[in-house]
């Protein structure tokens, strides 16, 4: 046995070894049976010097504890699993909720610009076009002399072809349908079921109707 190692073991037993050295020696101590036996005898010496009467110095207590702990799971394993589960537990509902809300919001926003699908008409479509504001904003064609107002005239609603969701969006919604709200899920799925499959894959999104309105401050 290395004398320096034994000297370190003695100092470690007395809590008089540097922490870095303790780390290294603890590793060796946990695996080296001879070193561990010596460590145990150091404890016996202390018990004799302290005259701990009634204490059996040869009691197989350490052996009994070790035997019981053989059936116990290692702490590194048991501690890591709950921690990992706990880590998942706190963010999973948040992520699920955020995803569901995102899908629902995207669906609602997207549906608002469409013609009625599956019998559920968007609010904007339910209002007659003629019933639009009684005094519409002044409209000036592009290139007009008065640059205070400019816009691109949107297409009439009647001219727009029925729009069905794109394949990608359909796949996305179906894949995440468990996170979306029941109403949104039902509306979208019914829309997919009733729409023309041939048109669904080729339908382009409507042209962005650029509306740039400048209102005179006065």
């Amino acid at each position, binding site marked *: 046995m290395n004398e320096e190692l*034994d*000297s370190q073991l*003695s*100092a*470690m*037993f*007395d*809590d*008089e*070894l*540097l*922490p870095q050295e*303790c*780390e290294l020696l*603890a*590793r060796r*101590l*946990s*695996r*080296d*049976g*001879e*070193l*561990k*036996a010596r*460590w*145990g*005898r*150091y*404890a*016996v*010496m*202390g*018990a*004799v*010097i*302290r005259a*701990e009467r*009634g*204490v*059996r*110095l*040869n*009691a*197989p*207590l*350490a*052996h*009994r*504890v*070790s035997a*019981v*702990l*053989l059936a*116990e799971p*290692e*702490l*590194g394993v*048991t*501690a890591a699993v709950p921690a990992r589960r706990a880590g998942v537990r706190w963010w999973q509902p948040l992520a699920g909720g955020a995803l569901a809300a995102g899908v629902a919001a995207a669906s609602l926003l997207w549906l608002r610009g469409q013609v009625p699908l599956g019998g559920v008409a968007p609010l904007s479509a339910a209002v007659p076009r003629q019933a639009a504001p009684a005094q519409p904003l002044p409209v000036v064609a592009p290139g007009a002399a008065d640059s205070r107002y400019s816009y691109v005239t949107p297409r009439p609603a009647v001219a727009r072809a029925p729009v069905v969701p794109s394949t990608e969006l359909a796949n996305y919604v179906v894949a995440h349908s468990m996170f979306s709200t029941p109403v949104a899920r039902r509306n979208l799925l019914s829309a997919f079921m009733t729409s023309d499959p041939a048109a669904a894959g080729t339908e382009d999104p409507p042209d962005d109707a650029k509306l740039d309105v400048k209102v005179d401050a006065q």
Partner: protein
Amino acid sequence: MSADASDLSLVRRVQRGDKGAFDALVLKYQHKLVKLVMRYVRNPAEAEDIAQEAFIKAYRALPQFRGDSAFYTWLYRIAINTAKNAVVSRDRSPIEYDLDRNNSEESYDMQGRMKDAETPEGLVLTDEIRTTVNAAIDALPEDLRTAIVLRELEGLSYEEIAAAMDCPVGTVRSRIFRAREAIDHRLREVFEGGLGRAEELG
């Protein structure tokens, strides 16, 4: 020197799944723990059972040990609670060991003798260990004996012993180590198979 660094390094290893490191903690504290528990129960065998239970409880609770207090303080607290619970449950138990209520102390001793009777060689071996260690200490040079006794009996730190003996801390460390080596040499000569089951660990 950071106090409890030794125990903490072993504790951290146990927390990472090294059960062998817990053996070292049990070996180090088993006698102190049994002695502590014997303040609550007189019978050594029962005290050992309670100490064993306390060690197992400590092992299971070790993931929650953060090192805010010293490990032995934490361990002693577990042992005291375990001992108190054992006393309460024994008092509530319908099986009374003390058949003669007028002399319960005697009945405890009888119970202890009955349990110890299972391992009479254990009692003999304990006496032999004591005799050997005490003889080895008596045979030590004065400076070595003083150093080991101040450490083990008075619980002084190396720095305090150095101040008391008017020598450097390194000398104290060397003296204590040499004292232990001398005692250990005698112990191993007498008991070739090692002390109890301690040799089997690891």
